[in-house]
């Protein structure tokens, strides 16, 4: 029982790992350089190597040629890599990976604890780590580096713009920069479309949304500086917990007082019928969201992973928050 506190730390790390929400993200906000799409892609990619890069933890490395065997240590990296068309090159993924379906056939290399032996046995030429969990597994990563394998730590995105950078970073080190640009501009278009659609919502119609990322009795929510907050801004809605910073456990009394218009849970993948649970909570019945039964579950993966599916996540949120605009 005394180890509980150290486990609590682990818990925080998992939250960070699952949601990609640690704290040390570089502040750089550089705009992607536009690339000429008419030039032969393969040649452009081939010529990009050897490539000297610095990762999110300031490790310098030179990647000699386009990686052909890649291990991804976090679901968001995997999703990005698959979107970049690297499904064949990916040889190992983390225990938490569940998208796309093809990951089921890939070797698992561990979750919180990396299984270095498995990783080395896969003989990768590139390991894609993530800043949110890298300090936790620094020793394991160093062992991999010592074995002569490039370990690239992708920065820990907290905002949509930073998620673009994650896509670009992975595109750069895997020699799929053009594809990365495509994905990013696609995402930008989708977000712009959402902004456009919700732009007309007046301040009176603007709804406040409370995110519940863990079930009762420990109600964790997402304050500012999280994807949830960012996605709400895109669709012109308010985060009910915007006074808070990051991921916090909220007093249920205080949530009742915030009186959000909509409650969105993100734990429907492991709890039965979260909406029903929220609706029948003691003392919550006078809240607008409960009274009008505006309680919905959105899959956490598409709203918390900094990857190509974020726009999809924003759309899911928009559908339940402003059904009158998005139901066609």
């Amino acid at each position, binding site marked *: 029982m005394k180890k509980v506190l150290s486990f609590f730390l682990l818990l925080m790390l998992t939250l960070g790992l699952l949601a990609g929400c640690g704290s040390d993200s570089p502040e750089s906000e550089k705009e992607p350089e536009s690339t000429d799409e008419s030039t032969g892609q393969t040649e452009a990619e081939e010529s990009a190597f050897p490539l000297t890069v610095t990762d999110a933890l300031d490790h310098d490395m030179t990647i000699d040629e386009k990686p052909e065997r890649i291990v991804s240590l976090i679901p968001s990296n995997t999703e990005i890599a698959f979107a970049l068309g690297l499904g064949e090159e990916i040889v190992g993924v983390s225990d938490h990976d569940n998208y796309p379906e093809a990951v089921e056939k890939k070797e698992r290399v561990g979750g919180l604890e990396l299984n270095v032996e498995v990783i080395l046995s896969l003989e990768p030429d590139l390991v894609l780590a993530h800043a949110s969990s890298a300090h936790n597994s620094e020793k394991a990563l160093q062992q991999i580096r010592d074995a002569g394998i490039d370990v690239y730590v992708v920065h820990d995105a907290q905002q949509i713009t930073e998620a673009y950078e994650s896509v670009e970073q992975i595109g750069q080190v895997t020699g799929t920069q053009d594809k990365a640009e495509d994905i990013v501009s696609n995402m930008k278009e989708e977000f712009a479309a959402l902004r456009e659609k919700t732009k007309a919502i007046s301040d009176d119609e603007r709804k406040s949304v409370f995110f519940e990322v863990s079930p009762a009795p420990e109600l964790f929510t997402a304050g500012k500086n999280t994807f949830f907050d960012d996605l709400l801004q895109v669709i012109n809605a308010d985060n009910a917990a915007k006074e808070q910073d990051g991921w916090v456990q909220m007093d249920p009394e205080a949530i*009742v007082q915030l009186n959000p218009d909509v409650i969105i849970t993100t734990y429907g993948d492991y709890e039965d019928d979260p909406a029903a649970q929220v609706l029948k909570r003691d*003392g919550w019945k006078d809240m607008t969201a409960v009274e009008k039964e505006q309680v919905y579950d959105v899959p956490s993966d598409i709203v918390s992973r900094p990857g190509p599916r974020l726009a999809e996540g924003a759309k899911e949120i928009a559908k339940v928050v402003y059904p009158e605009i998005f139901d066609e």
Partner: protein
Amino acid sequence: MFIRKFLTNNHLLAYVLAFAFLLVSMLAAISVGSVSVPVSDIVKIIGAHVFRLSIAEQVDSMDMNIVSQIRLPRVLLAGLVGASLAIAGAAFQGLLRNPLADPYILGVSSGASVGAVVTLFFNISIPFLGLYTLPALSIAAALLTILFVLFFARRVDRTMRVETIILTGIVFSSFLGAFISLIIALTGDQLQQIMGWLLGSVSMRGWSHIGIIVPFFILGSLLLLLNTSELNAMSFGEERAQHLGVDVEKRKLVILVAGSILTGAAVAVSGAIGFVGLVIPHLTRRLWGPDHVHLLPLSILTGAGFLMLTDLVSRTIISPRILPIGVITALIGAPIFALILMKQRKS
């Protein structure tokens, strides 16, 4: 003459102070929070409930809801859990003649925790029990654990000496603790729920959980309060107690089972909240003496008030965020205890 008698009557004063502490803690805990309710309003609300008067015009309905549906049940639950752990601790310390004994020493809490953690991990839901699945399985696991501990202790040593019981308890505790660690290592999505549960909390249990703990609290406390003089006798050693005419083996069994029921029920509704069961009985003993006839009821009052106060701190100190209550019990309790210990040594 009367006043002098009053002042020398140590125990009356003890009860008055303990009651006052409980009352003040309770009023403060109900009054303070994200919505502040003046004490006068609380009296009005309670009065209205008791005398069936209408109070609608005085108190805002949302505030009223927050207080009666969210805060009041958590305050009462904190009180019941604190009381259960404190009296169980007082009884175990007396019975086992060990100042380090607490309600968790026999592995009962680990047993209850395993029950709860397994429920969370496998997402078990028993059709008839629904939300009560967790407390039900957790109490069942607690009772099963104490039965196993007693069975093994008896197999090792027929007379079930105190040392044997403690040792068996520790062995079981470690084993079950390892089992919990194993589940934590294997879990993915439920990790946060399991951790939150292990750290202990009285948040969002509602009135239903009060209904769960009350019968066990009454049963366990009654059993212990009926055995206070036997506890006194046994604190001189089991042989002395035997000479004093106490049926040691039978009483020991009753006290162990009663303490386990209290602990199991408390852990089942609130998770493993440490420290209360260890320190409150010590504190009470230091203040008012080791006579179990008074120690047990006074521990109930003090334990209840203490946990209400710590819960108050846990939900107000960085409001609207919440801290785990187990962290606060230790942070507040340990320094207070150290202070009292030092004062006692000086005088």
